[in-house]
């Protein structure tokens, strides 16, 4: 007989009604957040969900945890500041592919290399939904749109490659169509020390109705997670973007500010004396 769980998924849901389109993958990610937090037994007030701008970045308001819905692209910076100031909190940054990889790309690189104990969930739908369907860094080069007629012709950004190369300590991919697997992945990411990155393929049914077909394309990666970055990199070379699972789990120590030395502000004055 297991002990009574302290929390259930519903405890993390706010009474704010999502404005996401029906059919959006983000609903499942929201559900997965609740399940994951419950599984971890986290008190809602000890969790902060931090986001930038975009459809998926609306997620903090839909949770009953603390939250910050900041400006476009800066979720990781907000989350880093909060986690360093309040290390005892569980801090999860969340957002979309445009927010995280385009306008926030620099923060993504440096969050990976800084390796603060955060979890970053990117709901990747390969499109800017909130601004009405423009190509994002992860969009296929031939996807036709009003802003890039005939496609961008640009090679898509590969988030897992960048995360691995930049030093993320946990790199994984999940699919919103399998909320239980998403929840399990988020649990693993939060448990893993350091910077954990989870790309969740989360279809945009409004601007990318073709993504309804993702559920037939995704598959569990045939291999287990590795702690060897070189092996993980080789796997990514043959990855088509639809392999699910944990790719890499490193053992790098998370960044923590050094402890204080117990001085008072007045103790700092000596060096000013003439």
């Amino acid at each position, binding site marked *: 007989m297991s002990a009574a769980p302290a929390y259930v998924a519903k405890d993390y849901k706010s009474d704010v009604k999502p404005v996401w389109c029906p059919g959006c993958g983000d609903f499942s990610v929201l559900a997965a957040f609740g399940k994951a937090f419950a599984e971890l037994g986290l008190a809602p007030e000890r969790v902060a969900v931090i986001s930038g701008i975009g459809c998926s970045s609306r997620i903090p308001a839909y949770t009953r945890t603390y939250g910050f819905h900041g400006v476009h692209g800066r979720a990781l910076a907000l989350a880093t*500041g909060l986690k360093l100031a309040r290390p005892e909190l569980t801090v999860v940054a969340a957002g979309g592919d445009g927010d995280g990889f385009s306008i926030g790309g620099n923060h993504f690189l440096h969050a990976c290399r800084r390796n603060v104990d955060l979890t970053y969930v990117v709901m990747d739908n390969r499109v800017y939904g909130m601004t009405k369907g423009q190509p994002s860094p992860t969009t296929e080069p031939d996807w036709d749109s009003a802003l890039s007629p005939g496609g961008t012709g640009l090679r898509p950004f590969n988030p897992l490659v960048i995360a691995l190369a930049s030093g993320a300590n946990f790199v994984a991919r999940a699919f919103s169509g399998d909320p239980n697997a998403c929840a399990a992945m988020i649990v693993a990411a939060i448990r893993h020390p350091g910077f954990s990155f989870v790309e969740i393929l989360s279809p945009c049914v409004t601007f990318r109705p073709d993504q309804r077909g993702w559920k037939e394309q995704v598959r569990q990666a045939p291999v287990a997670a590795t702690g060897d970055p070189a092996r993980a990199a080789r796997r990514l070379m043959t990855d088509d973007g639809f392999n699910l699972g944990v790719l890499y789990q490193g053992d790098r120590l998370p960044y923590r500010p050094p402890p204080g030395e117990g001085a008072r502000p007045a103790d700092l004055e000596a060096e000013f004396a003439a």
Partner: protein
Amino acid sequence: MARHSISLALTGSGGAGVMTAGNMLLDAAAASGCHGLMTRSAGPQIRGGEAAALLRLADFPIDSHDDRLDLAIAVDWENVQRFAAELALDKQSAIVADPAAGEMPAAIAAKGARLLAVPLKQIAKSCNGRPNMVALGVAMAALGLDEGFGLKAIDKTLEGRDAKTIEASYAAFRAGLAAGAALDLDCRLARGQTSHPSHRWVSSGNHAAGLGAIRGGIRFVAAYPITPASEVLEWLAPALRRVGGTLVQAEDELASINMAIGASFGGVPALTATSGPGLSLMLESIGLAVASETPVVVIDVMRGGPSTGIPTKSEQADLAIAIHGLHGDAPHLVVAPLSVADCLFTTQWAVHLAESTQAPAIVLSDQFLGQARAVFERPADIAFAGGRRIETAPGAGYARYALTADGVSPMTLPGTPGGQYTADGLEHDARGTPSSRADDHTAQMAKRARKLDGFDYGRHWAEIDGEGEIAVLSWGSTAGAVREAVARARAQGLHVRLITPRLLLPIQPARMAAALEGVRRVLVVEQSEGAQFHRYLRAHYDLPKSVEVMARTGALPFRPGEILGRIAAGGAS
């Protein structure tokens, strides 16, 4: 005859060590009970560039350079013409130069100063020392400062070095003293209002701002390196560690400001420091701090603009962006220190204001204040009452952005059960739920304005001094030269009022009207070619009919004499 203020320059290039000698001279003067100020002019090179240490020592408090130099000591002349304009030498000045350094450049010679030859390098070589220590000795002798303070300054600078090096420095310094004593220099410093040196501090404005931040309660700093703000951060890095705080070097200014906001959301008072280019990048997120009502302090150590501009020179031309740079109607705080020493107070005050009003505060320091080293009385300990209003036991109906009478809503911190909310840059209702409703927008806008407009800023809002129908209005570092000009004008029998606001936003119309009561003529002095301060005053305050403006770039700091000239000229008409 001893004089109340002596100004001198030490010039030299690549490895001559004139900045070190200048700092030692300032330390020695401070230890002997004098007031002082030192700034630098330097070429763009990272190492080995031409440099000049510009010092003013006095027996009364000073916040600006004087009108002219009494003495220049040139270890060499390399490229000194690049800042010839900043060396205010005249026929009454003396130049001590090493004949081995060659011909005096024409730009310097044209000033007509008296040239005295001292073989600095040869003297240094004879005692295995360095020419800058000889120059230090010459300067100390000229000023009439005691040898012992010079030796102490050497000890402090060379702490940890081997005995041989220290002995050689002693010897070179003493040889310089002897050489200086033999010169006919009228640079002896009087001892008037000297106080006990134990009450004296020597600091740059950047370091003072760092201490002010910590006194105010700042325990988290995130920043990106930038001239001339980096010293704030470099001072804070070890200092924060000592008191249990954290400093993070961020990947860019966009990250800095957001990390600070994130930390402050967590309840830890937070700050970032930057200069104009960085402030430009931060503006969007400062607006986020406004909308989400997250306290945060941003120090902008202003430099010459626009764009990359002149990183090593001062200017007061970020006023407009600090006040108007945020998109939307975004009430926030802008304050400016009025002297090097005031960088401490004003930064501490900014922390208090930001925390109390849950709003971002921009501190407009500048390169002059930030990088000048000055001697000043130890600033008093001030404990402001109030601070961040925190809800520790939120009830069932807790609303983060509740519409309170004074506009300040108690905030919960993460970890507080039942206080969960989402801080948002989107407009929201009282609970923080995103809302595009007209009534929510109207109510939240009014609340954010009310909490700043209704706050009692007290007497700290400005430094106001004197009576009379003439008023000089200035702000920031320029206030130093203005203060001295006004003192001189009064010594000449003129009645002049000095009005230097420390609080630039929110505006204080009633207080300014009271300060200007009875004033018929205003002189505005500022280091902005576009007269940003003048425009600001015009936009927000009722000025008398007669307004004159002294506005120019920061390339050449204002001197008290030229401001006095304008005061006196107008007063006579």
